[in-house]
Structures are given as structure tokens and as C-alpha cells.
């Protein structure tokens, strides 16, 4: 079972209490789920490949344009080297790719202590 990190802590992957789990692929438009965000238990954004960066924009849109405040989980090829960028774009939950070292991964959040972007 893949390791789950929430708010920079490794947690058990328990079923969400209630509500719908929405899942977006890189080609999906977040506008398509805008009306269902309020009742969602969480939104998952899939990263099918290490170098596919579309999910970063999807996360930004969900947080800023569609005002989603609930759990936003990155799934798929999620590695230590993505976590800093993913968190900056609004993800707060990360399902690590199988085989990733969870302790090492946690230090990925600390790669940079400042950022230029507002």
C-alpha cells in the first residue's frame, strides 16, 4: 500500500468519512467538477508520468479560481522531488509512488525555505 502524507505527516490511508471522491486526469478541465467541489470528500489529481506538469496548473485553478478548500491529493508518480512544487500549488495530501522512502520524502518539503512567487 502506498504511503500517504497529509499536511507533512505520514498518515494511515483511512477511507474518507463521507462525500464524493473526485479524480482529475491531466486532460480534465477542473471547471467540469466546479459544481461538485462543495460536497466532495477530497479531490485527487493524477500525475501519470514523472515529467507531466499539468496537475500543477489544475491544483492552482482548483484552489484559486474554484475556491476549493478541502483535501487536494496528488496521486500517481508522486516522488520526493515533486513535493515542494506540489505543496506550493495547493496540494495538502500526497500519495507517494510505491517504493518511495517516506522519511526521505518528507524532507522534500524543506528543499527551499523561501520563494519568489507570490
Amino acid at each position: 500500500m502506498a504511503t500517504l502524507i497529509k499536511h507533512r505527516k505520514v498518515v494511515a490511508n483511512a477511507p474518507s468519512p463521507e462525500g464524493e471522491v473526485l479524480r482529475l486526469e491531466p486532460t480534465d478541465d477542473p471547471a467540469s467538477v466546479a459544481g461538485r467541489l462543495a460536497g466532495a470528500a477530497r479531490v485527487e489529481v493524477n500525475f501519470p508520468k514523472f515529467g507531466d506538469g499539468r496537475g500543477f496548473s489544475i491544483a492552482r485553478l482548483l484552489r484559486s479560481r474554484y475556491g476549493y478548500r478541502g483535501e487536494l491529493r496528488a496521486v500517481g508518480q508522486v516522488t520526493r522531488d515533486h513535493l515542494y512544487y506540489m505543496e506550493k500549488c495547493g496540494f495538502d495530501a500526497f500519495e507517494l509512488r510505491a517504493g518511495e522512502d517516506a522519511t526521505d520524502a518528507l524532507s522534500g518539503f524543506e528543499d527551499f525555505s523561501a520563494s519568489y512567487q507570490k
Partner: protein
Amino acid sequence: MYLYDEIDQRLVDERVAQFRGQTARFLAGKLSEEEFRALRLRNGLYIQRYAPMLRIAIPYGLLTSKQLRKLASIARKYDRAYGHFSTRQNLQLNWPKLEEVPEILAELAKVEMHAIQTSGNCIRNITTDHFAGVAADEIVDSFVWCELIRQWSTFNPEFSYLPRKFKIAVNGAVHDRAAVGVHDIGLHALKNEKNEIGFKVLVGGGLGRTPIIGSTIREFLPWQHLLTYLDAILRVYNRHGRRDNIHKARVKILVKERGIGIFRDAVEAEWAHLRDGPATLTAAEVERVAGRFTRPNYKKLKNEKPGSEPGFQAWTSRNVHPHKVPGYAAVTLSLKKTGVPPGDVTSDQMDAIAGLAERYSFGELRVSHEQNLILADVRQADLAALWREARALGLATPNIGLLTNIIACPGGDFCSLANAKSIPVAQAIQEKFDDLDYLHDIGELDLNISGCMNACGHHHVGHIGILGVDKNGEEWYQVEVGGNQAPAALGKVIGPSFARAEVPGVVEKLICFYLENRDSEVERFVDTVHRLGVEPFKEAVYGNADQTSQSRRERALA
């Protein structure tokens, strides 16, 4: 020079630590080849034909003497005591060891340098006019805007895994010396009728295997909106750019496939949400960044009459350029001496050039995208002394703007992508045109050579462009004429390709035809091509149609 603040320094230091960790994980087998590739490339590290290659960032081409000395010492300690200045105003080392790269990056960080985003599918080094800040036709000091964009693009979390590389150029003067038409985004500073500053925004230009000149997406973007507008373009590209085929992944293909109208609508729709958001630039922010640039402390001087020594005169006419401050001039140190690979400099030369910059130009210099070095703030009274020193160092070839000022990629001698070598072709052409009087008679001519269709040598925008192609494992060269950097125009291929030994002779035929047919001495080669068309140049090289098929038969039999 832009001086780092505490955050700039911290980010560069943290980047070194991050890459050190990534390299260690790769060497320990914890990162796959493919994943490490994506990570090392964004730190400038390639695995080349014979060895790794490290591309060191020189943001917008601006360097201090101290930094150049550090580059010299790194090249000595970790490489073979030379480096190659590239068309993106960066420096490439051709022989570093992979496991030593984190050490090299740590040394660079000590002098406020790095290799961040010099490769990989992210936003690359921002390039600009090498006369920024000193040009007589300046509208804005483009360095300040480049630095604002550098900060916005550095580790930008949303745009770190784009479909493909992304190149931005900024031009701050009336004349475009940054080739904004052949970049993913080109920004050309303007003033509107109210004297307010803004940018004309071009998108979707680029060279490579599908050369395209950028389309105007906005005629005038007020400066406050620069970063939010870039965010909008990049977001549309990140979400919709093609990821199925590496050769169709640049933004130019997205713009071409959708049409600029539809692409513009998508960007404007995105921007409607981002406009006036937190990334909107304020005067205070622009001043903060501008304030971190040191400025030369110019003396009040009068313009001088240049000396008339023959060699000095030729040099001042080609390598000395006007300056906005009276009594000063900008000087190009030519890295295009015959027999030296274009853009290559030894560590000893780097040290010597650092000394020249200290003594003659406030300790700063610039790298031009034509692969030369510029001392931007030289007192006119010092020109003759500088010329003598530069000449002794082999850096005073008076060929700027002339045929032998060849732009060339490293080509098949180093690069694993190349189909053919570029350096020996450049040298053979330089040798053929070694006579200075003849060169000056030919006048302005850009000759650019790329070793493959990735076009690092910008052959599409050379007045004469030469492209290395592979035919059944052999190196051949295709010749184009009529390209131009600004206003951007793409060259047209004159016909079937040539063996390497034939190339200088082909260039000579083109030049002879031009000299016989130019309408006056002021009509440049490229103007004659545009006036007469490619056809007569083609005939001058291949003969008429009958002769052409005859020569084709002979070549097929050869």
C-alpha cells in the same frame, strides 16, 4: 550588476544542497536514469557524446570580473581549462565529471552564480540585448525586467514541468538586438502616446526543426501586468501544449495548430482571472530590483575623435559601438579568431579578460548571443590602449557583423544530438575569407552554422545559414540564404546538400554573385537576396537547371 539579496543567495545555496542529494540518490541507485535526467537537466547537466556537459547560467549575459575568474578557475580545476560561450549567453563546460558537478555548483554559488534551469522542460535563461543599459537607442534598461522575470521563473512551482523548454527574450531598445521574433515569448519594450512603458508581446517563435517567427499576441501590455500575463500564457501552454510528441511540444506548435486568434482568446480568458492579482508588479517592486543593480560611476567626459592607426581604425569601425554617455563606448572582444572554435575561451584568456574589464570597464562584461564578449563602458580615451591589449590576447579580430563572426554550435565534436560537425566548417570558411579588406568589402553578413536541425547555431536566421544533415551515416551540409535576426526572417534552402569540403567554395560562389549584383556598396548580402530572390543565388551555386541535374548525376555517381 545585480547583487544578490539574502533570499537570492539562500535559494542558490539550497539548490546546491538539493542537487547534491539528487546526485547521491542517483549514484546509490535510488533514482532511475530517466528521472535523474529530468532533474540534472534543470541543473544544466547533460550527458554528451564523450563526457557530461555542464551549462552554467549567465543571467541575461551579465558577468563581473570576479565571476569570470571563478569560471576560469572552475574550468581549470574540473575541466580542460576552457569554456564555450553559447547563443543563450551561457557558458558550457565540455568535460566535467558527473559526481563533481555538485562541487562545481557550490563554487558557483560563492560568486552568486548557478546552473539553474539552463536546460530541461522549464523556463530557461532570459536573454537580452548585450548593449542593455548603455545603448543610445534605449527605451528601458532591459536588465531590470530580465531580473524580474528571472525571479518569477526560478523554481516557479506551476511551470517546472512544462511540455518542453521555454525561452524568453527581452529587448529594451528601439533596435531589436535580442531576436525577440524567434523566442517562445519575445518582449519588446515600448512607450505609448502617454509616455507609459509597456511591452509588445510576441509568442510562438522559435528555431529548431520547425522554424517559426513569433506572432504578436498583444501590441501593448502595460508593465504592471507583465508577470500576470506571462502566467496566463504559460498556464495555457502547460495545460494544452502537446506532450505526445517531443517534436511538437513547443508553444510555437500549439500557436500554429490553434491559430494565434484562438490562442490569444485562451490567454486573455485566463488573464481575466489573473489580472490585478498578487503577481501584479508595483513601482516599489520594480524599484527594489532596479536598486540592487550597481551602476557605473561615469565621469563627465566629452566625445573623442578616434585615432587613425590603420589596424585600430578597422577595429573601431567594427568592434566599437556607440554609448549613451558622452566620452564612453562599448567594445566587442571577438571570440571569432580564425582557428579558434567560435565562442571558445581558455581559462587564461578568461583571467586576462577579467583584468581588462577591471581596468577598462568597471569590472563588468556581457556575453552576446553572437558568442562574443562585450566591455560595455569603456572610456573613448582608453580605446587604443584596450585595443593593443586585446590584440595581444587574440581578442581584437575586427570582424563584428562580418562574415567571419560566425555563430556555431559545438556540433558533432561534442554534442550527441549533432548530425555533423560545425567547428571545422566554421574554421574552413574563416580561412577562406581571411583577407580583411575583402571581408570589409563584403560588408555586413551573418553566417550561422548548426550541426543538426535543433538549430542551436541559429542557422535559420543567418544571412547565410548552414545546417549539418545526416545522409546514410555521412555528414552533409544544407545551405540557406535570406535569413535575418531582426526583423526576423527565415532563410530558404538553395538546393541539395554538400560535402564538408565543398562548403567554403559554395559560400564563395554566393558572395561572388552578391558582389557582382548588389545595387550599391550599402546593399547588404541579405538585402540583395530579398531583392532578387533565392533563385539567382541557387543558379550561381548549382548552375542552371540542366547543369543542376548534371551535377546531381555526378554527385550520385561520386
